[in-house]
């Protein structure tokens, strides 16, 4: 049975409704913070703002704290409520999503640390175009994945999953052009490597957003699509009207 985003507010136990609502609210708040971390880390690089980059690194602790809090809430619900069906799937999806968000937070920190190095060594703007393009793309994936989670929207989630392939190919193409820079100018090797690490981190943000989208499908449909080929997703997820 497909579930809708208001399903967790219909329990006979209002306290249970409240606990599940809180859980979703906290996950969305964590998503908001993590998205801002990625945004700030990229902006710190592009604007040459190393102070902002330092703040991103410091803020990672807040992201970690949120994951621990969400995990604790999930543990309490599992122990006290023994949730079943869509309630169980929500708790499992939230635990997994919080773990991916925490990893996205780590990637934001990596971007920020590399940004500090690049800014302080005045490394120029080589590779910034690639960073801007890919960062905008993965941030959109992340936003859409979180929106899909909030709305229980599997169609939007599937779009995110399909976009991940595009990000992967943009990343490969950016890597090729950065390699060319390095071959042409040995002095560019160090700064370009920094950019490559940043791109790698952004590509990982795309992968984690892809995971978030997969959890939405599990939550709503009870289908585990983590190892389904993207081409088969439409049939498996949207074709199932059971």
């Amino acid at each position, binding site marked *: *049975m497909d579930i809708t985003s208001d399903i967790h507010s219909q*329990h006979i136990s209002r306290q249970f409704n*409240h606990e599940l609502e809180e859980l979703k609210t906290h996950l969305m708040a964590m998503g908001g913070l993590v998205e801002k971390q990625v945004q700030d880390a990229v902006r710190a690089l592009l604007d040459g703002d190393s102070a902002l980059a330092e703040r991103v690194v410091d803020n990672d602790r807040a992201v970690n704290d949120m994951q621990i809090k969400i995990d604790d809430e999930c543990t309490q619900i599992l122990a006290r409520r023994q949730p079943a069906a869509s309630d169980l*799937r929500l708790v499992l999806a939230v635990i997994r999503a919080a773990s991916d968000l925490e990893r996205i937070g780590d990637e934001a920190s990596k971007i920020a640390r590399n940004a500090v190095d690049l800014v302080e060594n005045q490394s120029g703007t080589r590779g910034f175009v690639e960073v801007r393009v890919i960062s905008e793309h993965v941030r959109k994936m992340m936003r859409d994945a979180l*929106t899909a989670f909030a*709305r229980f929207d599997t169609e939007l989630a599937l779009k995110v999953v399909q976009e991940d392939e595009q990000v992967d190919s943009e990343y490969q193409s950016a890597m090729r052009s950065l390699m060319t820079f390095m071959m042409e100018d040995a002095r560019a090797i160090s700064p370009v490597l920094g950019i490559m690490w940043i791109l790698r981190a952004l590509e990982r943000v795309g992968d984690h957003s892809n995971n978030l989208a997969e959890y939405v499908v599990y939550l709503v449909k009870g289908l585990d699509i983590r190892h389904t080929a993207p081409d088969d997703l439409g049939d498996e997820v949207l074709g199932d009207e059971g």
Partner: protein
Amino acid sequence: MVASRDYEGDHGAKGYVMPVKQDPAPRRGAFVDFAPEDSCLEVSGFGLRYGGKSALRDLTLRVPRNRVTAFIGPSGCGKSTLLRALNRLHDLNEDVRREGEIRLEGQEIHAPEVAVAELRRRVGMVFQAPNPFPMSIYDNVAFGLRLQGGLRKRRIDDIVEWSLRSAALWEEVKDRLQASAWALSGGQQQRLVIARTLAVEPEVLLLDEPASALDPISTLKVEELIRNLKSSLTLVLVTHNMQQAARVSDYTAFLQDGELVEYAPTDTLFTNPRLARTENYITGRMA
């Protein structure tokens, strides 16, 4: 009112609520998610009326052999009525009218050639409150055997021991077999009743809320027993305790208002039920 549960990004998703979907299946007609290859009991088109009031309507389901099947549903949904119908306990009530068939190993249990006493030996029943007879532990278990007659004392001794071992009670009572059954604890009494049923070698064991009067430890012992017994017989369990159904059963049937709503492997029913009515019941939502 709780805080918005929507994602607080800048994309305008706030406050969006998907339209509520309806059950894909119509109100009438159950959703049955599996077809057991090897079934022991088959209920088809079965209905039951008590003095004009309909208690069960058009039930069709197959109970797989050597598995635990649980019937769950709200009070008055007909789950106990169905369980009792499986060994014709309603025969005693003249007000009852039935339709449809129940077949045990292919044979219609209401057929004139079927002797009720023999049916009840083959399909044993354990009730909510333990009901040991006012006699010794040994005599309780030997009761059915003596009723059948024709067995020597040594043979009865062996069967009593085997039954008590099968019911996971032997170690606790082997030194006091002649003590009164009423001296046992509630959990021990329930296992004694199960041993008494096992002594006559039933093919099916029906359990009507077998642990609802027991403490948590005794409950776990009875549940462990249920799991162990399925290697030798088919078990059908009626329970109010959904966690218990989830813990011990292989298949679960959800009944509501005298109808079968959904029947599926327990793994599926408790993680991803197909119908909204099932989902609402097992997750404690208002219908």
